[in-house]
């Protein structure tokens, strides 16, 4: 029989070789020497003890890896910027709904400075601002203004926060007579403000 191959020598040294191979290693001096040499090398290798850090090291390492893994999630979490984009879009939606339902009507002095009618219905009274209320001082208004400043109509439309077609028309139809008069007044003032003043000549 030929001598054992390296793989068979390793199997014999591991004690997992077939019986005929083990028998050969026992009978063949050359193969037995090779098996003994392997076992001796394993014994030598085992003289290098296992490195065992402090028990406190493992929780620290786990925490460090956990932090790194959580930082790693940032590229995958591409939705995160959209959360910030959705905030102003939501604010725009709130504004549009508010305007659409006519719950807040502007006066010539400013968008929210109309004095509340003393006899207004409770629903309207609850949303009507105080006469001395300056919208610039309202933190909510400021927040909405800042957040919606960079949002285009296209972005708002793409995100689905614009009111559906016809909803503004329906809201207008629901205004009562006084509200319609007030709205018409506001629109006239807005148009007048945007109409360029004609230069006044000497014969004018």
């Amino acid at each position: 029989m030929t001598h054992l191959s390296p793989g068979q020598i390793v199997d014999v040294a591991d004690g997992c070789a077939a019986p005929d191979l083990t028998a050969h290693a026992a009978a063949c001096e050359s193969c037995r020497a090779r098996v003994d040499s392997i076992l001796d090398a394993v014994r030598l290798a085992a003289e290098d003890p296992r490195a065992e850090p402090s028990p406190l090291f493992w929780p620290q390492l786990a925490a460090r890896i956990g932090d790194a893994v959580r930082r790693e999630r940032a590229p995958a979490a591409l939705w995160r910027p959209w959360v910030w984009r959705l905030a102003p879009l939501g604010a725009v939606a709130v504004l549009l709904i508010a305007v659409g339902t006519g719950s807040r009507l502007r006066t010539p002095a400013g968008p929210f400075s109309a004095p509340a009618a003393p006899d207004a219905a409770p629903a309207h009274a609850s949303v009507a601002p105080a006469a001395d209320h300056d919208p610039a001082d309202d933190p909510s208004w400021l927040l909405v203004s800042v957040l919606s400043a960079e949002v285009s109509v296209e972005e708002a439309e793409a995100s689905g926060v614009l009111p559906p077609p016809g909803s503004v028309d329906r809201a207008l139809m629901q205004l009562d007579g006084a509200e319609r008069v007030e709205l018409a007044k506001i629109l006239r003032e807005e148009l007048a403000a945007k109409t360029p003043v004609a230069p006044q000549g000497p014969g004018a």
Partner: protein
Amino acid sequence: MSTRADAWPAGGIQPHWTLTVVPSTGDESGRDLPLEDLDDSRLVGLCLGGRVDAFDLIVERHQRAVYQLCFRFVRRHEDAADLTQEVFLRAYRGLRRFRGDATLATWLYRIGVNACLNHVSARRAPETALDDAPPIPAAGDDPASSLVKTEQGARVRAAVARLPPKQRATLILRVYQGLSHREIASALGTTVGAVKANVFHALGNLKKLLAEEAIEKS
């Protein structure tokens, strides 16, 4: 589990979405089990479903083995810790590629061996910057015998470091990490026969290097 658009019949309507089923932590009766009771494959499924805490448990279970592997290659605590982190990060990034045909431990060993070999080959001079700090002797150890053990351990470590990369990796996985030949073959992407041959030559070379070193010393 996920559906792939290219798995749909040609010419048909192909979906533009991917369906991902996130496995629950429940057992067969529907009762939710704590993460600690789940095996590695279930934890991997949960990770893929976005449960980072499941990966924390994977780290907890395998960090010691990965660290020991790395330390065998780099022999420096700080480097071994850095490499261990790198191994787990690579695993996390590539978790979708873990198919489960090997155990998670074997897969981590594969990543670890690649990371260590890259690290060692990049540094080129690891033997000059070794942290061969002796292990703390166990209580009751004779200081003289501890010193002898320490010196012998350093000699073995230096000899292992001089082995060719494949033999070194095979020896570390077999002798120090206790992997079977089949597991080593899976970790190194080779055959069981090649692993056995590498073990044989690695041990033979180790013995020869130690003998040469002893002659030089005398």
